[in-house]
């Protein structure tokens, strides 16, 4: 495999307040991957993302992102949080919120310049929100806000895009829009997505990880193999993972 390894986790374990949230997890993400992390609530999906972002220290094992400790290359990583808890009265317009996505590549003392503003315009165009650039951030709907968060991550031209449940709080038609957008973006960057949409993801992603503290499944199952392994991860009935759309990359090698 000539592609570069972007994320490498080996025997990763995380404990939060004495409770094991992730245990003995090993996987890697290769350049160009579109990886989905699925699993039940409390399965450690968000924790894994926080580890990759450098917000949560692992209690054992090693994690490498772009060959270094997580958090060392903020300019290469774009992050789309699940939800943003902010004051609806915050005096901020959409384009200024997206401009924050450029901060990782600016040194202190330097103010945003024309190139930064252009990157913002471009990423707002990508997510289809150009017309709302001057709208107050508090006046947006849930789906619009989600796309603003995506635009903010894209404004920094990341090589790795990490998304935490980007479709959790929006209606089904908007979900498809977001996935179509990600399908388009995968040509430009590596994507790791945490999601509940077990049915939806298999249509788009190249690989799936099922997490319920331990990693249950690493490869996308063949359509015939069905969801038995996924059901092992979930304590309840789930949509089967069916691998649609021939012609998409089946899977990358897993370390």
């Amino acid at each position: 495999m000539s592609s570069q390894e972007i994320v490498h986790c080996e025997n990763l374990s995380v404990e939060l307040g004495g409770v094991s949230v992730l245990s003995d997890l090993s996987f890697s993400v290769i350049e160009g991957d579109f990886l989905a992390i699925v699993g039940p609530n409390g399965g450690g999906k968000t924790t894994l993302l926080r580890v990759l972002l450098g917000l949560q220290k692992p209690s054992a094992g090693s994690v490498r992102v772009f060959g270094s400790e997580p958090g060392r290359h903020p300019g290469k990583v774009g992050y789309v949080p699940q939800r943003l808890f902010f004051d609806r009265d915050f005096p901020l317009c959409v384009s200024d919120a997206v401009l924050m996505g450029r901060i990782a590549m600016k040194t202190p003392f330097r103010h945003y310049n024309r190139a930064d503003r252009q990157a913002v315009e471009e990423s707002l165009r990508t997510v289809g929100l150009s017309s709302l650039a001057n709208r107050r951030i508090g006046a947006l709907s849930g789906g619009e806000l989600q796309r603003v968060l995506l635009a903010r991550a894209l404004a920094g031209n990341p090589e790795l895009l990490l998304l935490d449940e980007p479709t959790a709080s929006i209606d089904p038609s908007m979900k498809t829009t977001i996935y179509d957008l990600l399908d388009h973006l995968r040509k430009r960057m590596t994507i790791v997505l945490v999601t509940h949409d077990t049915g939806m993801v298999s249509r788009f992603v190249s690989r799936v990880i099922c997490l319920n503290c331990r990693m249950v499944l690493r490869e996308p199952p063949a359509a015939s193999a069905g969801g038995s392994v996924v059901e092992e991860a979930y304590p309840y009935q789930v949509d089967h993972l069916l691998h649609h759309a021939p012609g998409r990359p089946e899977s990358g090698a897993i370390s």
Partner: protein
Amino acid sequence: MPGNLFAFEFLRNAVLASLLASLACGIIGSYVVVKKIGFISGGIAHTAFGGIGLGYYLGINPLLGVIPFSLGAAIAIGLLGRKAKVSEDTAIGAFWAVGMASGVILIGLTPGYAPNLFSYLFGNILTVPSLDLWMIALLDLVIVTLAWMFSKEFLVLSFDEEYAEVSGVKTTLFYLLLLSLIALTVVVLVRVVGIVLVIALLTIPAAIARLFSRSLGGMMLIASLLSALFSLAGLWLSYELDLASGATIIVLAGLAFLLVHAGRLVISRLRAR
């Protein structure tokens, strides 16, 4: 009328001090409001009373005593909250009371009578000596310069701290810097409204301004103008009616705050019909 008023040096100083304080107040007050750190600011201000006691005890200008005390309180409360996992609420409560207590002890240890003590507690803008005016101007310059230099860091810190962290911004460092700027703003405002009333001038103008602004910069501008309006109107009223100037400024600001919110309520009721 204002022409006569200006002939007196004390009135000229009072007006200049109000305007300088309003600038710092509008800028830093906006951060206090959007980041919801009003009570940390109150804690820093009250801890600063220890500095006034220190000033009396050492026989120096009490404002010089306030600077180290308020900066120390800002950094200690910030660090305890961030690093030592002490709840910020607890740290604020402890510093608030201990600062005031040490002020009382230091003033008690100072032989003789403590002149103007009341004016440091509740402000007396009509007694600002020229030396204090220069000090206020210098602090203003420091506050405005630092706030301008780090405006993008302070904005992301106020809006989405986790994202700031992920983007490689040194969030604890900038948070402590912001608290330090609040501490310096407290020093600037002590002469105008006094330690006890500082928190109102830091929050009310910015809180009103937020309702009418689309950007943080706009909010700072409106907050500065409102703060200047309240200070000058309060100054004039207190002069005309012989009232305590700091308290008059705060009561005016509070009335404006109530009126704006009552007005909004009435308008939204009328629209709903």
